């Protein structure tokens, strides 16, 4: 075989063989994993996830390979899976292999603030039953939401719960959880307030009213401390903090000051959870509902497709910790010195 022939073979190998080899290698890699789905992430302004809908059969192992075309994104899958794929740097591929064991709809979403429209970065995984591919699982009837509807509660309004509109709430000093904890042992606390279910469906202001009636000799400032103590979870909530940091800080701020990086461009000013005046008038189930449904016309996205009801309650509980975070001075807007 002459040198010219060899050179032509080499040329053919380069021009034809190299692309075929690359294609073959990639195909072989994909075949090594059954059901590999490539999902490319771009900021929402550039289209978000592509594809943004994935349809797979139940009980089928699937590998989702996430890559980013622009900035670092974070990928999680919910609700109920507690899957955090982690950061996906531009050009890097992060993959996860999983099997969905029942039909339903799940969401993959970005957990890293990546652009002004970060919260729009969502994709849907539809898990179907091959034996009944057209079956659509009924939507989840959230008892908390339905109870609010039955009660006629407008979750977009500010709530004073138990008709406490006439009650004057005055913060004369910085509330103290420590003082509240000490007083809780000595003051009379009505039985209903001690029940978590009651606290979730009533405002702290309503509880304060009941406490004032039961303890007429105590100052309101002390009783506010007691209410705050009763509403604030005593254990740390790392999972909820992680959810909050991933999903809420962009608007509401890391310490709940309503001052996140995009707070200036939302349709309405994000709520400041560290404002005791606001939080004392807010019911837990309303916060829960707002989280799951989103805020009408406020740019507050819905998280019902990302979080389970239990995870949502965790986030609600975490919100009560924000007014008294020790690493950030509380900012009760209603304090009157």
């Amino acid at each position, binding site marked *: 075989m002459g*040198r010219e022939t060899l050179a032509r073979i080499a040329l053919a190998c380069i021009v034809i063989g*190299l692309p075929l080899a690359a294609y073959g290698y*990639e195909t072989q890699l994909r075949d090594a994993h059954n059901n590999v789905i490539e999902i490319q992430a771009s900021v929402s302004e550039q289209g978000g996830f592509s594809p943004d809908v994935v349809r797979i059969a139940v009980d089928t192992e699937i590998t989702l390979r996430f890559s980013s*075309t622009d900035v670092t994104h974070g990928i999680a899958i919910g609700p109920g899976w507690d899957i955090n794929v982690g950061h996906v740097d531009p*050009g890097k591929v992060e993959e996860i292999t999983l099997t969905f064991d029942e039909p339903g709809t799940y969401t993959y979403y970005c957990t890293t603030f990546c652009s002004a429209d970060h919260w729009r970065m969502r994709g849907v995984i539809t898990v179907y039953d091959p034996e009944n591919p057209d079956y659509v699982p009924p939507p989840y009837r959230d008892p908390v939401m339905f109870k609010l509807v039955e009660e006629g509660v407008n979750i977009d309004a500010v709530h004073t719960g138990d008709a406490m509109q006439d009650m004057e709430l005055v913060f004369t000093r910085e509330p103290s959880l420590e003082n509240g904890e000490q007083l809780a042992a000595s003051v009379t606390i009505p039985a209903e307030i001690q029940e978590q279910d009651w606290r979730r469906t009533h405002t702290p202001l309503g509880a304060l009213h009941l406490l004032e009636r039961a303890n007429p000799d105590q100052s309101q400032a002390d009783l506010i401390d007691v209410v705050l103590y009763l509403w604030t979870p005593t254990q740390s909530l790392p999972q909820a903090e992680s959810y909050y940091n991933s999903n809420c800080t962009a608007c509401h701020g890391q310490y709940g000051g309503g001052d996140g990086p995009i707070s200036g461009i939302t349709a309405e000013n994000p709520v400041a959870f560290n404002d005791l005046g606001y939080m004392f008038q807010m019911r837990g189930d309303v916060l829960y509902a707002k989280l799951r449904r989103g805020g009408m016309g406020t740019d507050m996205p819905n998280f019902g497709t990302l979080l389970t009801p239990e995870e949502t309650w965790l986030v609600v509980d975490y919100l009560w910790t924000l007014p008294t975070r020790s690493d950030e001075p509380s900012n009760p807007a209603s304090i009157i010195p």
Partner: protein
Amino acid sequence: MTKIDLLTAAPWLKPILRSRLFQPVLMLATLAFFVMVILTGLFGTPAGNRNFGIVFVWIVWWALLMIIMVPFMGRIWCTMCPIPAPGEWLQRRGIVKRTSGKLSTLRWRFPKRFRNMWLQNIGFLGVAIFSAIILTHPDVTAFVLLGFILTGIVLSILYENRVFCRYVCPVGGFIGLYSMMAPLEVRVKDPSVCVTHTPKDCIIGNEQGYGCPWMLYPGGMQRNTYCGMCMECVKTCTQNNIVINVRSIGSDLTVAKERRLDEAYKAFIMLGCAILYSAVLLGPWGWMKDWASMESVANWLIYAAGFLFINLVVLPGAFALTTGLTRRLSKQTLSTRELFTHYAYVLVPLGLAAWIAFSFGFALVNGSYALVVLSDPFGFGWDLFGTRDTAWQPVGTTLIPFLQTGILTAGLLFAINTAYKIAAQYSQTHRQAFIATLPVTGFMTMVTFILLGLYLG
């Protein structure tokens, strides 16, 4: 410095260079690299730092070109460049063999008015104003390179030899200019042998090789500028008269008779681009990057207009004023335009130093991306060599400012020395040459300070 002929000092080199396999083997190797660049550009991740095409073209290749190949070996890249290969192989109807008969082309005559560096200047500026996009978008890089290769093929069909490389290639233009600095040259041992050797195999070719594809007459070659180091003349010379010399750096700069305005402008464009690239790509001005990246067309138009204005008007204009001052102070008899052209060559060492300094700035910082894309060229998640997850690791960051300062200072000193040599060619006395050197030295010192300001912050 006495020249050393490598073909004599290293006799083993000659058979290699005379082999018809020499250039095709290099070209096929770089063609493989080129095909990967195109494939990854078109089908790989759009994230530049994870794409083989972007990393290997604009970091690895560019750094090798500007830091090693051009300064030390001149146009050695042109020896192996794959871009003209398809066109040349079509012309020759073969890759390795010396085919008989004439080259297969339409034999058009390349217009005389374009037989200079102006097309290369325009081409380079055309690429330069889009550089922030080309350098960061793999697909754009792929399309630009495909455009080059297509242009090379079309020109090879229309014209004989390497018209694309000689007159059109935007890269070839500045490599040619800066190759004047290289300590390596292809020349003839004895020009009188060429004069008396009437067959002129080096021009028309013989059974051993083709006539010079770069359309040069080796016997008259005094500079590296247009010699593509293809080594055809080493093959065709029947008089054993071709030498490959190791020589003193920058010795082509003092060859007076071939200085031209198109080359002079190439020197300005390259220096201007070095300054502007340093500001846009390495500088702290985000708005400039946004404008250059075409975030809005209106701003990009302002950027492009400014870019061209600085390169074509501001820098040459300032230099023209400088050479006007030179003429006035030194009373040299040449016209300002002639002095402008002659003295522009002092910008070659300074410009090359600026490009080396610029290239060090990003190559050491971003070189580690090469390990990542070697294992995962497309960004598909491959791990061919186990280096996919190599963390980005800037190298020698504390050293870079010292390197850049040293290189720029050396470039400035060499340029001042060159300025004096050029001045001496048109001066009667040492004093006249010394005075003539002063304005140009001031200009270059100012440019050096601007560059140092950009590199050192």
